[in-house]
């Protein structure tokens, strides 16, 4: 209720100041037919429908943004005894925030998202918005912002002559949204009923980012104090409860051209980081780093990434994690055709991988048809291997429109 009142207040403040507001908006509608690849057993995947509306009201220094989104998945229409209702359909006001801009300041308040860092897929310093993993991000590899969960935040930017500085305060708690037990992308060991949330494990996230453009280099520094995006299981008064452990992080990013390539890096040290173990939440620490290279030439786009994480705790055997990605996209603009290949690899004790191939064709202005094939590989206890029986083919029809 408090959040609703806050949002209404934001709208009223903006509306009162709107002498001659301008409006711009856009959206998309999408239908996707999904099929299981190979001879894998399982329910008919059926269709997935998605609609999104995005609007912006401008009046000088004030601006209001809103994004409304709805989804429906026919696969879960008759499977309510196996999965929670959330997988059948949902609709939400994803984002609603007010922006006030001055010469050197900008303030954004409301439900929104903020991306930190230079990495794709691997979240080295991107700590603010938890992910929605109910469909393992498969619909959102190309539109990662829809895979993030917006949350209530107050973001203040100061633009100095040399440094840009950003302060973020997020009081609203959000957690990584996992696929419920019984659904296709439910993680191994996902309980049918989740334990209660430990209310004591809640608080405010606060973070700072400084940014400078120096001698051709984009350099960013980060500091964060708050809570892990993932809920973990622990015991509280002999009861199993869910809790977001605290985390503290400092990090940095760099991006700069190197000949035909662009180098980008993220690095972070979490000196306090919770980790799920069999006995509960282990108070640990870790260092993560990513090295990436991008190249765009003659309608070819290459993205290469290698990331690693080292844990400093003593109890776990999984002290090092390696991840990598290779993405190649070719835009055949003469034929309104785009093809892409993505390869994600995760290695802890064993390696697992995800392959994704796509072909998209614009057959009319703002009308696209796309085909995608996704394959998982690895042992059952690995990140991608646990979904080894979820290989699938997807045919998508999408219409983008302006409002």
């Amino acid at each position, binding site marked *: 209720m408090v959040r609703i009142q806050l949002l209404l207040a934001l709208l009223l403040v903006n509306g009162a100041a709107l002498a001659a507001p*301008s409006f*711009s908006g*856009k*959206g*998309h509608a999408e239908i996707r037919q999904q099929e299981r690849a190979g001879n894998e057993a399982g329910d008919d995947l059926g269709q997935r429908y998605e609609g999104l509306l995005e609007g*912006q009201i*401008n009046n*000088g220094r004030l*601006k209001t943004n809103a994004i409304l989104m709805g989804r429906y998945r026919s696969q879960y229409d008759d499977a309510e005894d196996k999965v929670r209702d959330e997988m059948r359909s949902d609709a939400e006001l994803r984002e609603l925030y007010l*922006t006030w*801009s001055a*010469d*050197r300041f*900008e303030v954004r308040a409301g439900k929104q*998202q*903020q*991306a930190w860092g*230079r990495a*794709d897929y691997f979240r080295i310093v991107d700590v603010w918005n938890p992910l929605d993993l109910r469909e393992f991000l498969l619909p959102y590899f*190309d*539109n*990662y*912002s829809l895979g*993030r969960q917006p949350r209530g935040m107050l973001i203040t*930017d100061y*633009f100095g002559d040399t440094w*840009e500085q950003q302060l973020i305060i997020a009081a609203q708690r959000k957690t990584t949204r996992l696929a419920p037990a019984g659904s296709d992308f439910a993680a191994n060991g996902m309980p049918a009923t989740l334990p209660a949330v430990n209310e004591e494990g809640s608080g405010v996230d606060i973070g700072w980012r400084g940014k400078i453009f120096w001698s*051709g280099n*984009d350099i960013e520094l980060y500091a964060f104090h708050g809570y892990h995006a993932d809920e973990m299981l622990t015991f509280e008064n002999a009861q199993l409860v869910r809790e977001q452990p605290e985390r503290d992080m400092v990090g940095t990013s760099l*991006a*700069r*051209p*190197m*000949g*035909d*390539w*662009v180098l*980008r890096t993220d690095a972070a040290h979490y000196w306090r980081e919770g980790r799920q173990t069999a006995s509960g939440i282990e108070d640990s620490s870790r260092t993560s780093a990513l090295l990436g290279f*991008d*190249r*765009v*030439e*003659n*309608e070819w*786009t290459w993205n290469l990434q290698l990331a690693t994480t080292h844990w400093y705790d003593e109890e776990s055997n999984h002290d090092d994690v390696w991840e990598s990605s290779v993405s190649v*996209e070719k*835009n055949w*603009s*003469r034929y*309104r055709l*785009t093809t892409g290949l993505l390869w994600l690899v995760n290695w802890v004790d064993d390696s697992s991988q995800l392959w994704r191939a796509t072909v998209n064709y614009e057959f009319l*202005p*703002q009308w*696209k048809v796309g085909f995608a094939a996704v394959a998982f590989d690895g042992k059952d206890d690995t990140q991608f291997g646990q979904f080894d029986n979820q290989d699938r083919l997807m045919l998508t029809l999408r219409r*983008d*429109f*302006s409002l």
Partner: protein
Amino acid sequence: MKLLLKSAALTLLSLTMLPAFAVSEKSIKPEVLLEQVRDRDDGDDRRSRMILEQTMSDGFVRERELLMLEKKFGAERKAVLYFTAPADTAGTGILMFSYEEASGKDDDQWLYLPALRQSRRIATNSKEGPFLGTDFSFADIERLRVDDYLYEDQGTVEINGRTLHKIAAHTANGLENPRTGYSQREIFVDAERQLIMRDEFYREGRHIKTFEVTGLKEIEGYWTVTEAVMTNHVEGGFTRLLRKETTYNVGIAERLFNERTLRSGIQ
């Protein structure tokens, strides 16, 4: 899509930079003419609304609209391109810093992708690729670099009732310039209006593209290209670049030329 977004930002510049070739009528040495074109006075800043209309060889028409801000910072020029239509491109932004040719520095460019909510640094070493999938390349729309070619004055010709200086340009070794992808050009300059009115591009002796100014208007004392066409002789098709609204010296704030504007957009 990333490439498309990237090219969108650059396309805007083409309208700006190509018509910006200023020439002194009394100068006949090609290098001097083109240096004057490169350093032409386009005002302290400029705001424009641009339309990029691409007609492909099969008749498919793709149109993009964008707002563009440009500003001089001494010998440096900065530009922001913000796409407003169509829906699948709207919200994309490009930030470009162009440095003085004598400095030897490559441009710096950033691309904002609304789908990622992040800015990406763009490598600018090679610019022969198509800009937003159009018939313009990144090299076509960047700030003129005189040192890319050797020049030869070929006298004057009459085109559409105007006397134009014809300049032949070629690389020192006769091979294609690795940054632009062209080995030879024929440039037609209107010395009185201080503009390049026509530019023919060659690769390995083959005429591959022709740029032509098809609309010109004096706005607030500055000759401004309001329409230009790039015809692709290899792939077929052409791209029209329209400048619908232009205002000069409006006092565009310096603060707008950073990544913040890419995210927030131009009003």
